[in-house]
């Protein structure tokens, strides 16, 4: 029984990082209707940028913030230069997915061409372990959970309380109508991609911190659990992504605790496939959102 509770604790910790990434992914899809598979490679880039700073004695949390900003900007540029023009031209959604997958591969191999395939690490995770209700978490993991909750709360507040947020939601649900209301959808898109890119960057550094050692395949490996989490909760719904992250994380760790550890990954895959085939709008997706997912 104690193993189960411990596993749930580990699941919450990994779920927090998954959720952080999933929310950003979800926002990108909600805003631009694009499944941006390059997201994983951007997380890898974030991890390496973080490494660059931490090796020069930057505080890891400062590095996380700075990397978030950098990846946010990079995401805006990426969307503006590559994805938005393709969408404008009426490229099929499938081709755009292929473009994002290819761009992810290019970015990943550019990174490895520059820094090499060796294992990297941020170093020993100092800090005590926290024992809470039978779960064991490190101080770093607790910080990340808190950070994930805070960032998601912040996103929620932005989306519901600010004008920008309302403009973002309007653009996401009906771009043309939003334009006719006078919303500058281009700038609003940029803002959404910046925010989601920042979450991507933060998630990348957070992942590198929790995973202790990593190489250039970091983001690619983490991508599917994130997409599973995003879809599970309902793509376009930040709170849904948080729940999805928890579900994927906990399910994975429980499976690893009781059966073949290889199946931890398979759990995320299965969740994704089952949700897409059975209830594509996810747990909290509105019925109208489901229509967007059907052919």
């Amino acid at each position: 029984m104690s193993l189960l509770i411990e596993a749930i604790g580990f699941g919450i910790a990994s779920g927090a990082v998954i959720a952080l990434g999933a929310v950003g992914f979800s926002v990108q899809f909600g805003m631009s209707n694009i499944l941006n598979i390059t997201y994983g490679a951007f997380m890898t880039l974030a991890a390496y940028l973080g490494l660059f700073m931490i090796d020069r004695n930057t505080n890891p949390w400062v590095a996380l913030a700075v990397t978030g900003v950098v990846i946010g900007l990079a995401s805006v540029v990426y969307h503006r230069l590559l994805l938005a023009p393709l969408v404008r031209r009426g490229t099929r959604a499938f081709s755009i997915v292929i473009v994002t997958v290819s761009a992810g591969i290019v970015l990943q191999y550019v990174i490895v061409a520059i820094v090499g395939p060796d294992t990297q690490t941020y170093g020993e995770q100092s800090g005590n372990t926290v024992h809470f209700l039978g779960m064991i978490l490190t101080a770093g993991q607790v910080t990340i959970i808190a950070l994930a909750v805070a960032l998601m709360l912040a996103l929620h507040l932005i989306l519901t309380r600010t004008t920008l947020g309302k403009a973002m939601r309007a653009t996401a649900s009906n771009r043309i109508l939003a334009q006719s209301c006078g919303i500058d959808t281009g700038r609003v898109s940029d803002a959404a991609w910046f925010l989601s890119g920042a979450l991507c960057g933060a998630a990348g550094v957070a992942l590198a911190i929790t995973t202790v050692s990593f190489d250039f395949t970091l983001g690619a490996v983490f991508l599917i659990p994130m997409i599973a989490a995003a879809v599970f909760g309902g793509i376009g719904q930040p709170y849904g992504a948080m729940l999805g992250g928890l579900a994927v994380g906990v399910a994975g760790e429980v499976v690893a605790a009781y059966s073949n550890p290889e199946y931890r990954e398979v759990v995320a895959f299965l969740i994704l496939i089952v949700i897409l085939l059975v209830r594509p709008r996810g747990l909290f997706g509105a019925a109208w959102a489901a229509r967007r997912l059907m052919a």
Partner: protein
Amino acid sequence: MPTQTGPISLGVIAPFTGPAAEFGKLLSAPCYAATDLINAAGGVMGHQVNCASVDDTGDPADAVPNVTKAIATTTNFDMAVGLESNTAETTVPIVNSSKIPFFTTNGNTSFTKNSYAYYYRLTASDDANGAAFAVWASQKGFKKVAVILQNGIGSEGNLPGINAAVPKLNGSIAINLTIPADASSYSSEVARVIAAQPDVLIWSADPQTTATFMANYKQLNNGQLPPMVTATDSLTPDFFGPVSKVVGVDYVTHDIYLVGSFLDQSTPAFNTYKAALLADSKTHDIAPVLAAVGPPAGAYDGINAMALAMIEAGTTVGSYYNKYIIDVFKPKAGAVVVNNFADGAAALKAGHTIQYVGVLGTPSFDANHNSAGEFVANVFAADGSASQVGTIPGSQVLKLLS
């Protein structure tokens, strides 16, 4: 007798990309050391020897075109070393059918019985290594063993040997886990291992997996880590660096034992080898630790043996000099014992017969061209170099396997 003109190419067929990419540069090191010495002594019958890297990518399908292309386009491709675990099944037949003698460094049990005429292996197979881990753990008094292996051919190959040996040594396997490579967290697996309360971990995994797993272990076990017995494959800066950065140098130097092929570090052969590694700028940094590892030393000995066999045969062409290779190692009456290429070449030139005793000592090849040898346990020093702390007789290991 066919002759060739120009320099000879020595192929290093190893992964330079893919999941095992660190092995490429590790296996290139003995090549540089051996060829530096050979060329300084005037080459093989006047031919200089150059190292040619051949990337087998870790993908058995992609390896085939790369290796055949290298064989097709490299001039005087007369020797090879490497042929690593993941791709050996598809690359060994190619090199063999191209009549290029090669000393391989993989431990695949599939080659324990084989009929490849040009194949030679001076280091033990993975299951023998596994049994050696078990013997060492038993020698140190560890009874309850946790066996944790990464899912992959090199690590999985250890398992039959471990399973056979531990019970015979009156130990018990408290838990046997196969873990995925390079995962972002092993917390749940670690929790299971902690619950089994092992005295020691018998371990085989790449540096990234090890660092993450041990970090998780330390966090979940109140900072305590059990001792670890692993393979000398991990006797590299790639392993020492991340793992000590993550769990501290103290644990790495006191509690990690790396078991593998024995090399006597007091012999002139070893000193020559190590000096050559230190002298070459490409290998200088990894020399202190690499010199203690079996497979690269086996490659070094193999290169010397092949070069000397070429002189004995009077030609550099593989199909002609291949039959002299085993003879180079054999003790014979009236033979001059040599420890390096330069001495061997001089003795042969003066008309003597020679016996090459290299870094791994005198091998005893069986009918499959495999020679297992003795085993030794190493530990890391604080600067990342290695030192030997005990030996394990090869005969004991082989008995446990049968």
